[in-house]
């Protein structure tokens, strides 16, 4: 087996394999045998969401999605494929950066003294099946935020380290996708353990790690034929070609900060609900609030962290003052941070082109359109 030269940028080269669709259950079995709880896409409440996956029958077979700003619909079809859709409201984020969790507990002992107790994260190793290239790009950014700073987050870290990723190469593009313009997709090139390209009767399987290779060891695989490899490549290329949206540039930092008084901020604020849906579905957004939740008797208390948003009042409240009291400055904060100051903070933009913020915005505000209006086309 060839050794990886550099794990980050040059993944080890394993041969491409082929798994017949009928053998997909064997992949789940193998993951379970390796100790993973499987999480996979399923059709629930009208959307493809990630949930506990016991059998392949739960996968959204034949489901297609249609997305536009503010609207998401699925259609059933006779298609045998399980992954013939672009994405749903969640990426991997909720599985690693929990929407709500307790960070510590404090209780009074018999002398009335406060005793603090860490809550250690309860972790069962997870295998996520169906992650897309944009989800992996977002994962790298969340890793950078939660793990690579001075104080790695132990909760995120415990879950991240045991995460097994079965990526799926996109074959379908939603009208809201623009990962090609951010350089994050539609092909996943790294940071997966396995990656599947779904063809009519099975999967071309790429191996991205030693763990991936061992999960494959027990599976009935064949070598991928040239025709299968071509079909897989062509459908990725097609998915890229079909993207119609784009951000006006990869680095909009300077132009955004030069346009802090642009009239478009008022215009978008007139449409924006300040509801925070965009930041909640964004796979890279990491803002949170912490609060104390004492028991009624006052004897103990829980310190809880939960997802917050730059669109809430509390998020900019400091010492009696709400810094961003109206929507104009909240929306501006979101866009100038996401597409602007992320460059200073993390060396790239915070947008991976998944389109979730526009699909799941109740009033369909389109980040590519707003960025273009403020920065000018083709900046």
């Amino acid at each position, binding site marked *: 087996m060839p050794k990886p030269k550099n794990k980050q940028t040059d993944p080890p080269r394993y041969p491409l394999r082929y798994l017949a669709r009928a053998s997909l259950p064997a992949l789940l079995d193998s993951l379970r045998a390796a100790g993973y709880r499987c999480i996979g896409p399923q059709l629930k409440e009208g959307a493809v969401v990630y949930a506990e996956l016991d059998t392949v029958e739960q996968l959204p077979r034949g489901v297609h999605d249609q997305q536009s700003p503010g609207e998401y619909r699925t259609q059933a079809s006779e298609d045998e494929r399980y992954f013939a859709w672009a994405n749903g409201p969640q990426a991997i984020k909720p599985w690693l950066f929990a929407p709500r969790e307790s960070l510590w507990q404090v209780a009074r002992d018999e002398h009335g003294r406060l005793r603090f107790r860490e809550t250690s994260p309860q972790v069962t190793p997870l295998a996520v099946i169906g992650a897309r290239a944009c989800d992996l790009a977002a994962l790298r950014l969340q890793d950078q935020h939660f793990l690579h700073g001075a104080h790695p987050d132990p909760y995120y870290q415990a879950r991240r380290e045991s995460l097994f990723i079965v990526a799926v190469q996109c074959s379908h593009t939603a009208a809201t996708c623009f990962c090609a313009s951010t350089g994050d997709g539609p092909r996943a090139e790294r940071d997966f353990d396995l990656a599947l390209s779904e063809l009519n009767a099975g999967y071309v399987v790429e191996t991205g790690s030693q763990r991936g290779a061992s999960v494959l060891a027990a599976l009935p695989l064949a070598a991928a034929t040239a025709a299968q490899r071509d079909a897989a490549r062509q459908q990725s290329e097609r998915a890229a070609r079909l993207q119609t949206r784009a951000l006006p540039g990869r680095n909009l930092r300077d132009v955004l900060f030069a346009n802090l008084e642009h009239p478009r901020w008022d215009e978008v604020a007139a449409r924006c*609900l*300040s*509801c925070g849906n965009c930041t*909640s579905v964004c796979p890279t957004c990491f803002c949170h609030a912490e609060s104390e939740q004492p028991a009624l008797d006052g004897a103990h208390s829980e310190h809880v962290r939960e*997802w917050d948003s730059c669109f*809430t009042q509390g998020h900019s409240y400091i010492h009696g003052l709400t810094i961003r009291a109206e929507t104009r400055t909240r929306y501006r904060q979101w866009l100038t941070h996401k597409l602007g100051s992320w460059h200073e903070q993390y060396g790239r933009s915070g947008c991976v082109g998944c389109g979730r913020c526009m699909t799941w915005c109740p009033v369909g505000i389109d980040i590519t359109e707003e960025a273009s209006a403020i920065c000018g086309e083709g900046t």
Partner: protein
Amino acid sequence: MKPKIAVHKFSSCDGCQLAFLNAGEQLLTLSELVDIVHFVEAGPVAPDEQVDIAFVEGSITTPHDVERIQRIRSQSHYLITIGACATAGGVQALRNLVDGQQWINAVYASPQYIASLATSTPIAAHVKVDLELWGCPVNTRQVMAAVRALLFGVVPEIRRDSVCMECKREGNVCVLVAKGQPCMGPVTQTGCGALCPHFGRDCYACYGPAENINTPALVNRFAGLGLLPEEIARRFLTINNAAPAFVDAARSVQP
């Protein structure tokens, strides 16, 4: 001496008082921490006693209510409203928008026995209110958190974020985006745990307006979903009918 608590009722359905009565073990804890001196639905009756915290359910709808709330205010250190009626007029505040006397004449055989005001108004329209707990009904978590904070001597924290924030934390699929339902979540204050969307239906705003809301944008969106002006107005006027932000939104589509 333990702090004293009273629970008073005005025009309401009594549902908010269940936030205490259905609290289970917490009700026992509460009764150890405080003296519940007046709470008719639970037993104790002492309406004129001086208390540290008075919880007030219901809206002001009769001449007698107007006097009684003044008395309660003067004998209470903190006055906390519980629920949509006390905080925003309640369902019964629909009459503020029409000729209420006409309704009384239409409904009652002997309308001369009905002594009610032309309007149903929130407690804050009559006396100073220290804290407003929204919801129809309020839940146990809200009332107990308020008591706990006051016992600690701190200001109770009330989040006024949109229901959407909680809905996403709960992992619900957005019913507006995925099903085209006219969900009020984006303009409604959090606190219920995104209960309705969790069961696949649209929020009907029982927790009242969130902070910094943009009702014209949601009105537009509802129109885009095909709702008629009167249907849009009804989304805003159901529960919190004296909440100015909701009344204005309804009037903007149906003057």
